[in-house]
């Protein structure tokens, strides 16, 4: 049953209020297509769906001009797919409460490529920022589609990193696909549309509301093979997504943090419940090789070991002036303040020398300035598609 000619009718069917998804599906099965439903006699509908539902369908026909409405949607460059269509994501169709209609801009995640949801706290720490970037870019380089909620914090950062690494990323919204929320992630929203997709089950123009977000979380996990959690507080929206992922039978991995950090509590409670441990993006690749993707483990592992967390040792730091080298040796992947670095160099340098060296290192591309301090800059590695797709 491809969309094609029936699609405008399916769009109408999706938007009938007061009829559940199950009844819509059974109607489709009984009558064959949405067009048939639209054209069906009232008695036929009453027999197929019951009196109340038939009444609702009749009501909805009154103020719905099939072709005009669908054309309006197309003019907005919004695509539409419906449960049962061939282009409806397979992974999503498997979940118990799959949305009946799905709106998207850009395109939908490919069923042939692995997809991973990277989720976590909005108010994340510098550690979270670092890990989200690392996982986002490394997974994207391995050809994995990154699914997330386009939110601030972990969600947005991992997607941003994935897109920057040349990968594809999909933002699942709790509002219409034509509404950018949160507004400050506008650039990410635009980039996702070009280099991936924006997906929502809510009709275009729907304003974001608190009640709409928990249901969209099931789509995030539903579109993915696997869910990675980076930093979550106890009782957070992230853990709601995890619950849904588990109901849907998705594997959940979490990234460990320090036990003293409140942002690690969520992940640590997941470990207690038996979640997988992801200490490197490679763990994700390993876990993914289960559900039918033949990942070229040997090559990926080899390349991965070289790149992941190794920073940029290959760059000739030998050529740096002595002071800069001294400071560089103390830099880590997590940010340190000039004062901490000064202490770590054994106070051999003055604070002003440390600060000067840091700016030089930033200019030369060896270090990076973050709100918490200065850290080693990890250079983006070359594209490394280590995944073969099982046809």
């Amino acid at each position, binding site marked *: 049953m491809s969309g094609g000619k029936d699609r405008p009718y399916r769009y109408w069917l999706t938007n009938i209020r007061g009829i559940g998804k199950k009844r819509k599906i059974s109607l489709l099965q009984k009558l064959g297509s949405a067009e048939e439903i639209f054209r069906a006699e009232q008695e036929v509908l009453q027999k197929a769906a019951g009196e109340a539902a038939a009444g609702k369908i009749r009501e909805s026909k009154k103020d719905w001009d099939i072709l005009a409405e669908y054309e309006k949607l197309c003019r907005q460059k919004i695509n539409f797919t419906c449960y049962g269509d061939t282009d409806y994501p397979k992974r999503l169709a498997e979940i118990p409460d799959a949305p009946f209609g799905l709106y998207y801009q850009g395109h939908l995640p490919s069923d042939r490529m692995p997809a991973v949801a990277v989720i976590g706290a909005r108010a994340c720490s510098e550690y979270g920022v670092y890990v989200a970037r690392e996982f986002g870019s490394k997974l994207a380089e391995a050809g994995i589609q990154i699914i997330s909620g386009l939110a*601030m914090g972990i969600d947005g950062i991992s997607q941003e990193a994935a897109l920057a690494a040349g990968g594809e990323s999909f933002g699942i919204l709790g509002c219409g696909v034509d509404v950018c929320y949160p507004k400050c992630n506008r650039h990410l929203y635009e980039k996702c549309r070009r280099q991936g997709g924006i997906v929502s089950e809510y009709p275009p123009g729907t304003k974001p509301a608190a009640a709409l977000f928990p249901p969209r979380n099931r789509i995030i996990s539903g579109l993915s093979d696997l869910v990675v959690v980076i930093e979550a507080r106890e009782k957070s929206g992230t853990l709601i997504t995890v619950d849904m992922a588990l109901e849907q039978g998705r594997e959940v991995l979490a990234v460990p943090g320090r036990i003293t950090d409140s942002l690690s509590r969520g992940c640590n409670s997941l470990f207690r419940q038996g979640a997988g441990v992801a200490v490197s993006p490679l763990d994700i690749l390993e876990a993914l090789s289960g559900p039918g993707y033949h990942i070229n483990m040997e090559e990926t592992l080899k390349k991965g070991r070289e790149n992941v967390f190794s920073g940029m040792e290959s760059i000739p730091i030998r050529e740096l002036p002595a002071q800069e080298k001294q400071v560089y040796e103390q830099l880590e992947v997590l940010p340190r*303040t000039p*004062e901490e670095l000064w202490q770590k160099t054994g106070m051999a340098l003055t604070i*002003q020398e440390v600060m*000067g060296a840091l700016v030089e290192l*930033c*200019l030369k591309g060896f270090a990076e300035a973050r*709100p*918490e301090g200065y850290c080693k800059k990890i250079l983006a590695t070359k594209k490394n598609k280590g995944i073969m797709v099982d046809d």
Partner: protein
Amino acid sequence: MYSTVISGGIRGIYSYLVQVEVDTAQGLPGFEMVGYLGSEVKEAKERVRVALKNAGFAIPAERITVNISPADIPKEGTAYDLPVAVAILSSMEIVPRESLGHLLMIGELGLNGELRPVRGVLPVVRKAKAAGFKSCIVPKENGKEGAVVEGIEVYGLGCLQEVADFLRQYKAPPFEPAQVDLEKIFRQQEEKGPDFADIQGQKEVRRAAEIAAAGFHHLLMIGPPGSGKTMIAKRIPSILPPMSLEESLEVSTIYSVAGLLKEKQSLVCKRPFLSPHHTISEHALAGGGKIPRPGVLSLSHRGVLFLDELTEFKRTTLEILRQPIEDKEVQIARSSGTFTYPASCLIVGAMNPCPCGYYPDRNHCSCSPWEIDRYLHKISGPLLDRMDIVAEAKKVDIAELGNENDAEGSREILERVMRARRMQQKRFQGTGLSFNADMGPAQVRKYCPLGTQQQKMMQQLFSSMNLSARAYHKIIKVARTIADLEESGEIERRHLAEAACYRRTDSKYWGRHR
């Protein structure tokens, strides 16, 4: 009989000469005052009449007309009481007219005939000296303030009777001119204030404060509560270079106009340190009133204006700072004219990075990114751009608190600051500038030439840090001060790098999303 006495009026911090004319003539007895007078000046009529009577002078039953000229400038204040009274005495031929020739006088009168202190004695006496007067009569309490001006005799007298005596024996007055020992006053300032030795850790902010003090660069400190930002700010006066006499006169003039000079304190010779509460109004900050008086911004001229809890200030109040920071003066326009007060102060701000104060320590801080943004954006971009040095205060470790005191004291820091001060004095001799921070773009080009290496570095910094033209010059100016602290004639790469480090801090917070 016509008679005239010279006095002085104040407009902003400047003084102008005023002629008080009195005519007593036959006619219906009365007392008229004209000359664009404010209400307190008009009330002088009653004070003068009663004071004269109580000092033992009978006012003739004649028609007395007083004109205060120039008659087209609005007059305010009570300093015209004495000249009006003396002009009347002169017109009654109680004091000889010749005695008034090279004399200028100001003072308020009490009903008992005593002379009371007035505002603005210092600028008036300076003006008198510039206009070639030989002596001045001022109220006793203002004597020392006036005596600071050299080359003119200033007599501090107690009551109207004394003034009459003085004038009657003007060739050899029975009074001594007021004297001040400038050296002694300047020595007094060396009293001990809080010392930098009290501060544990905070290497970065200490260094930033040192540079700020040496070159008068505006400083913004960001850090969690209790990290010692306020402590450091309070210790900045202890490492500021002492004021020169010229600077001291500038500051004292402002204080004199504001009526804030005390009798004991003839001159402000310690750099002011003002720390207004964040509820301060726009007018209190910039100066205000119908005839504007200097605000906190001008009162901290040549000194430190410390704005603690910067984000708690009203935004409109903070935005007022913008133009004075650039121009080093405040211009206040009123219907009666535009008033200009100098405002070349070192602005030191202190603030938390987020509402709870602990960002980026996520164990303490659970503020949402949105809340942090809203908090930080209370400081507008243009204002932030005007801060030369942004330094982070970090939470102090217990290890540092426990350390036996090995922190540098204010004296050692001051020695380095003085070195930089001498370099700057040499550099700016005869230009009217005094600190590196005062340089404009043209002077930066002239006094801070960069080598090819350094220029290349600045180009890289300009593009990588997304600098404004102003920020670009500020980095060079701060680097100049850092080089001065080392007595280095050339600005080296390391100086530029350190200066840039203090500007990177702000983009770390405000540019988090870039």
